[in-house]
């Protein structure tokens, strides 16, 4: 009870200082929030591109249905494969007419259908890397009635490199932003604690226990972290709305990220306050 009262009293007695430290926590977390928003959207974009990674297995015109069924079934058995879809010659033609309307007359006028039948192999999300693609493609190419296997090899390689570079960059940047945020929060709360060192000294002097002295500061740190976290959320959301309205469509981060960010603020606040007060508890 005393601790809660004291923590609230601190906000009342020095609204500017506590407000400023909460604002610093908020701005520090805002940077982390922006980074999270950017990373999340980049990841979404890459994933949606990766979804288009597909292997097309072209089949001989004279392949029999039983043979096609066999290839389809065996390819579907491979661990990396999510789905195998059969596209008949007719369906291929219909698609071509739909996708390329300027040639539709040409297609209609033809007496024989020049387009091959095929199997479209869709991979599992975690198997959209060059090695897996190549493995599946090689397996498909081994069948005698398979004419050709296409999957845009260079494109898959580039995409995969991009994913790796992006992952490493975001890990490094994320760690740096985290560290900077942690340092800023630590400094802000150190100042807040320093402003009240007289109280800490008096409390030590008259025989208050360390736990008793510490608790209000930890609560204050938690509150600064919470307020800062909420502020960071608000600022990041504004940026998201701004980008969405004026630049391009972006997705808002999942709720767990928002809650995680706010929880991070609270944890940072508590830890930073705890570290800041430790020094003062040793002075008297």
């Amino acid at each position, binding site marked *: 009870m*005393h601790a809660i009262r004291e923590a609230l009293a601190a906000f009342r*007695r020095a609204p500017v200082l506590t407000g400023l430290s909460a604002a610093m926590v908020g701005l520090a977390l805002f940077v982390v929030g922006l980074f999270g928003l950017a990373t999340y959207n980049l990841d979404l974009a890459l994933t949606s591109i990766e979804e288009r990674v597909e292997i097309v297995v072209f089949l001989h015109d004279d392949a029999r249905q039983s043979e096609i069924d066999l290839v389809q079934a065996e390819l579907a058995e491979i661990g990396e494969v999510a789905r195998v879809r059969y596209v008949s010659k007719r369906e291929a033609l219909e698609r071509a007419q739909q996708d390329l309307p300027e040639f539709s007359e040409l297609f209609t006028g033809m007496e024989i259908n020049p387009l091959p039948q095929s199997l479209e192999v869709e991979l599992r999300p975690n198997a959209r890397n060059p090695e897996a693609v190549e493995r599946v493609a090689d397996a498909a190419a081994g069948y005698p009635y398979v004419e050709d296997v296409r999957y845009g090899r260079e494109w898959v390689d580039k995409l995969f490199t991009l994913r790796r570079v992006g992952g490493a960059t975001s890990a490094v940047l994320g760690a740096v932003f985290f560290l900077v945020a942690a340092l800023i929060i630590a400094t802000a709360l150190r100042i807040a604690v320093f402003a009240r060192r*007289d*109280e800490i*000294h*008096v*409390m*030590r*002097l*008259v*025989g*208050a*226990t*360390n736990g*008793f*002295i510490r608790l209000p500061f930890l609560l204050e740190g938690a509150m600064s972290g919470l307020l800062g976290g909420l502020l960071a959320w608000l600022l990041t959301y504004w940026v998201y709305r701004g980008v969405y309205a004026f630049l391009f469509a972006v997705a808002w981060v999942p709720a767990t990220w928002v809650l995680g960010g706010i929880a991070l603020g609270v944890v940072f606040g508590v830890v930073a306050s705890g570290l800041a007060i430790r020094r003062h508890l*040793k002075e*008297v």
Partner: protein
Amino acid sequence: MIKLTNVSKEYPKRGYALRDVSFHVRKGEFAFLTGHSGSGKSTTMRLVHMAERPTSGEVRVTGYSSEVIGDRETWKVRRRVGYVFQDFRLLPGRTALENVTFVLEVTGVPRKELTPRAHRLLGQVGLSAKAGAMVNELSGGEQQRVAIARALANDPFVLLADEPTGNLDDRATRGILDLFWEINARGMAVVMATHDLELVRRHTQARVLELDNGRLVYDSQGA
């Protein structure tokens, strides 16, 4: 009650602040700890308050020994020892009453009793009329009285005062000394560190312990 046995204190850079000091202050005694600046008075006070530990020897305060007590337990000693500083160390921006209730509250006195007890303590130091005044608006003598009321809050067995009159004029000094004698008359021991020999001479009934260069060179009780 307070017993120093062959106490030495060495600081890494300054060297020895105390050398082989032994004395015993009993219940209800009034003692001056005198000596020039740097003679080791403050170090002695800090050792008794367990703000520091001796390099060698033992400091005993009401059953707590410097050899045994951990940093987390010093609060137990502090609740039995009142401490008054030259610079008062009050919390600015709070009233005299709030400065006292603060101490009562942080040492676990129930909320209902805070204000009546703080008023009683301020009454004991003759400051009832100024209870609602901000401490920074009080005179030096009055501020020191608030600090003394605060030191008495835990009902300690001894009052340690480190140059309590150092910042006060003659009249305020006399007032504070009268107050110490009053407190002492109720059975509480008082140990006051001062470099003011004139003041010490005026109080012939008190015990005098004199430090010089970290050594105890004179004890009026001869022990």
